[in-house]
């Protein structure tokens, strides 16, 4: 009887030990990457005045889950040269600077998207999952993009890009037209400044 109890105890301990072992050992994982497929080729004529590189800490909450990450971003501010208003005033060519095109991407350097931590918050958070779904993660990333763009308008980057764009455009067009060129900017703070107030 005593021997049976001992055997049962050993079996229980063994089961618990095996269970613990497998809960800490991750199953083998394979990641297969397909070959890159060209999905779009676009042509344009855009004058790029500023290249942006930044590293942004991300702290956001969605559905009672908090994420903290660091993202490296790359972007640029450009102007469409094919849809510019041009006019002649005597010997001078007058050009109106077009609205800025702000492109913002995640960089392609190593660790450009580094997730530091996630946690569940709110009542009974200890019992809830802290794992974000891909949809939640994408929603956070959409917020990041909007906030970063907003910052570019507020910290004067867009204003600087427009001023430099106007200067570069004037230099180019004076070479092309061999005449004095005047570039006017109807929205020096940015064509979309009000949207990001």
């Amino acid at each position, binding site marked *: 009887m005593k021997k049976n109890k001992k055997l049962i105890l050993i079996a229980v301990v063994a089961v618990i030990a095996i269970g613990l072992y497998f809960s800490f050992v991750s199953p083998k994982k394979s990641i297969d*990457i397909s070959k890159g497929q060209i999905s779009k080729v676009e042509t344009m004529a855009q004058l790029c005045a500023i290249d942006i590189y930044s590293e942004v*800490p991300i702290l956001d909450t969605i559905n009672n889950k908090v994420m903290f990450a660091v993202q490296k971003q790359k972007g640029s501010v450009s102007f469409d040269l094919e849809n510019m208003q041009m006019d002649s005033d005597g010997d001078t060519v007058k050009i109106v600077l077009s609205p800025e095109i702000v492109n913002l991407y995640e960089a*392609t350097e190593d660790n450009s998207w580094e997730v530091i931590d996630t946690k569940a918050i709110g009542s009974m958070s200890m019992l809830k999952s802290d*794992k974000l779904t891909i949809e939640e993660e994408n929603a956070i990333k959409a917020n990041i993009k909007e906030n970063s763009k907003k*910052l570019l308008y507020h910290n004067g980057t867009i204003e600087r890009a427009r001023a430099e764009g106007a200067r570069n455009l004037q230099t180019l067009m004076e070479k092309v037209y061999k005449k004095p060129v005047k570039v006017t900017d109807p929205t020096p703070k940015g064509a979309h400044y009000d949207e990001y107030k």
Partner: protein
Amino acid sequence: MKFKLLTMCTLAALLSSCAKNDNTELYQELKSVDKMVFASMAITKTAKMDSSDWYTIGKRIAVYSYDSYMRAYVDLSALQMDDLVFDEDAKTVKVTLPPVITEITGRDMEMRKEYENVGMLRADLDSKERAEIKEKANASFKTEVEENPMFKQQLTDAAKRKARKYFETIFEANGYTASIDFKPSSNSDSHEKE
């Protein structure tokens, strides 16, 4: 190392407060450029993650995709006055543009979920795993762009066609017939920057 330390300090400072959306930059670099961009390309990468072992019960498979982008441009700051040769009698102009340069502009922030199958007894994927998947896809993308000249070539060809068309049109509006050429780059016709 310095960056890690800075990151950890920021983490501590931010997590000590209530979690709110905060995008203040750790670092920002603005570079004044004078690039004329004539073409861009989107390249889709798809990644499949499968995690299983002899002792696991149920599948744990996820397939995600996202686009990375490249662009082709000429550096207008390298365009000199003598690169434009006008013939007033014939009303022609010969333009020699700086070489076409290709570069990687970045990648989508979001990933598209193509497929997910996580069994009831398996753990959901977390954000760190998705970041790892994206990191591997990104490394593969950069190697591919470096080793397969097709991407750069196709982009450069499209940019040259567009540049010719654009400059021919603006000179034509000014009464000139333009012939557009490109300076060769130091090593090849186009080169790539990251």
